[in-house]
C-alpha cells in the first residue's frame, strides 16, 4: 500500500511539465487544484490523465475522469483503481 505522501509525489512528477505556477507546484497538497492553482492549461489535462494511466498502469473511464480536477480527486481514483488490481 502506497502512502499518501508517495502518491502526491508521484502525481507531482506527472503534473510538473504542465504546471505553469511553479510556486504552487512546490507546495502541492491534496487541496491543490490543477487549473486554478497549478495553472495547467485545460488542453493539457488530458495529458495529465494519460500520464497517470501510464504511470500507475490503470485505465480511467471518461466518467471517472470528469472529477479529476484536483490532487485529492485524482488520488481517490488512483487508489480505488489500484485497489481493484
Amino acid at each position, binding site marked *: 500500500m502506497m502512502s499518501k505522501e508517495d502518491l502526491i509525489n508521484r502525481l507531482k512528477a506527472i503534473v510538473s511539465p504542465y504546471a505553469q505556477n511553479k510556486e504552487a507546484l512546490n507546495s502541492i497538497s491534496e487541496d491543490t487544484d490543477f487549473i486554478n492553482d497549478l495553472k495547467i492549461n485545460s488542453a493539457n489535462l488530458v495529458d495529465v490523465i494519460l500520464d497517470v494511466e501510464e504511470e500507475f498502469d490503470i485505465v480511467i473511464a471518461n466518467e471517472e475522469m470528469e472529477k479529476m*480536477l484536483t490532487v485529492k480527486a485524482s488520488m481517490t481514483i488512483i487508489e480505488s483503481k489500484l485497489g481493484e488490481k
Partner: protein
Amino acid sequence: MIGNDLVDLRCALKESNWKRKGFLEKLFTPSEQAHILSAEDPFLHVWQYWTMKESAYKIYSRITKTRSFAPTRLACTYVSNGHGTVIMNSLIYFTKTEINGDYIHTIAAESSIQLEKIKIEIIQYCGEMPVYASKNPSCVSHHGQFLALVY
C-alpha cells in the same frame, strides 16, 4: 451569457500531441473522431472542436455552477462557414470559429442572435500579461502569445 476559447497554434503544436494514444478517445465523441480522422487537416480540426467545447463549457459551468472535465459529453456539430453547435446535457450552444495561421478562436452563445452581437478583441503580447480587468470583458481566454477578450 457568452464564452470564448483561443488556441495559439504554435503552442498547440509544441505542447500537445493529438496523435498520442488515447488522446482522441478521451476528448472526442466517436462521431467527432471520425470527422477529425477524415479531415484534410486533422490538427486544425482537433483544435477547432476543442475551442468549441471549451467556449461552450465556460457558459455551461457558470450557469450550472459546476466544474468537470467531461469533454466527450460536449458534443460538437459543425454546420458550415465557421458556425457550429455544442450540446451538453440537452443544452445547446451556438459557436463561431475563426481560424488563421496563428490561432483558432471560438465564441459561444446561448442563441444565434446573441452570437452575432459578440465583440471580439484579440491582443498579441509577450512577457507580462496586459491588464484587462478594467475593460470588463464577459469572458477571457489566453494561450501562448494571444489574449482574447469578448464583450
